[in-house]
């Protein structure tokens, strides 16, 4: 049975008249958004206290599609902006949706410091191995020898291992999934939303029209076939060895530790200072 104009049960999490979104057929960003919204629904998150921040890029449009307070920052600066939001009002649940270039090239410095500080931000990185929005230029996660708009002879830069970088920088929760692992991705997002401190989830995501087309995966289905063939769930293995190659995509949860978040530490300190002041005054 098919209904014509029935409301998708998760449509209340999306801004009306923004769907259908601008993303290409098969784009992983749509799946990231879908899993995120599933997680919100399963946790019954209070949308009034949720703020979504996105950077520049295709995934950057995600904040505009969600029915929450949202902000679309300048390129690479979403973590710094989000830090200001969270510190000013720690009651808010602040989620950053951004891409591999935005978070790790221009935003690299902000990423390592936000992770180091253990700022209570939940970061979902849609990693499609290139700068999709601007036509598919190479980025910090582009695999060696991949063809992109600015590496027409094959990329000669070694890519980052994002989960290794996040773990080394001090994130308390680090996971990597592909857009095929929809259930586990949703579970990871739920975990991150409930956890104190800096959480990072890398989502390997198809970019069929641009990256895929140039690298012998011209449809989303072919990209997902790669994920299916090559993915290996190896939770809590060494993130430094979590490779991404033609034959192996190591996914799983890599870090899940407890460490007091920056904003909790800060507000504790403020209370201590003020208690001391009261003692001196009285």
């Amino acid at each position, binding site marked *: *049975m*098919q*209904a*014509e*104009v*029935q409301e*998708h*049960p*998760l*449509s209340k999490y*999306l801004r009306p008249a923004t*769907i*259908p*979104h601008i*993303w*290409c*057929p*098969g*784009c*992983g*960003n*749509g*799946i990231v*958004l*879908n*899993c995120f919204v*599933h997680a919100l629904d399963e946790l019954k998150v209070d949308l009034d206290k949720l703020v979504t921040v996105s950077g520049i890029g295709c995934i950057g449009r995600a904040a505009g599609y969600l029915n929450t307070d949202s902000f679309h920052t300048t390129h690479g600066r979403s973590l710094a902006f989000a830090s200001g939001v969270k510190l000013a009002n720690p009651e808010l649940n602040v989620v950053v949706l951004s891409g591999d270039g935005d978070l790790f090239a221009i935003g690299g410095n902000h990423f390592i410091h936000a992770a180091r500080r253990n700022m209570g931000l939940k970061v979902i990185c849609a990693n499609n191995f290139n700068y999709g929005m601007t036509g598919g230029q190479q980025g910090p996660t582009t695999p060696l020898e991949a063809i992109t708009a600015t590496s027409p002879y094959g990329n000669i830069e070694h890519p980052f291992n994002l989960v290794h970088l996040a773990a080394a920088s001090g994130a308390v929760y680090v996971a990597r999934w592909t*857009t*095929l692992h*929809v*259930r586990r991705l*949703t579970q990871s997002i739920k975990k991150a939303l409930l956890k104190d401190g800096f959480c990072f989830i890398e989502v390997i995501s198809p970019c*069929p029209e641009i990256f895929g087309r140039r690298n012998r995966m011209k*449809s*989303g*289905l072919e990209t*997902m076939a790669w994920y299916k063939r090559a993915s290996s769930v190896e939770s809590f293995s060494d993130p430094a060895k979590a490779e991404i190659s033609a034959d192996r995509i190591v996914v799983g949860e890599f870090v899940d530790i407890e460490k007091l978040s920056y904003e909790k530490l800060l507000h504790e300190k403020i209370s201590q200072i003020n208690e001391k002041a009261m003692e001196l005054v009285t």
Partner: protein
Amino acid sequence: MPERIKHEPLDSKDLKHPIAEIHLIKDQCKGCGYCIEFCPKKVFEESDEINARGVHPPRIVDENKCILCRFCTAVCPDFAIYVIERTSEEAVKA
């Protein structure tokens, strides 16, 4: 009752058999094919019709095969498909 089940379960009258109601928002579909490819019960195939976006949306082959895993709902990048559960007592006796 399928043949392989020799005795009727004692609680068969209380059992509610989930029945799937699959909803396709056809004009929102961009034709990526994920639901068709990844449905564990092969409930879908590509249809011949062309939707408002100029692509072939999926077509339900047999809704009764659906086991309500909702993988299609989770993997659709365009929020173009969702599955609702209907329960039916009559279905148990089928």
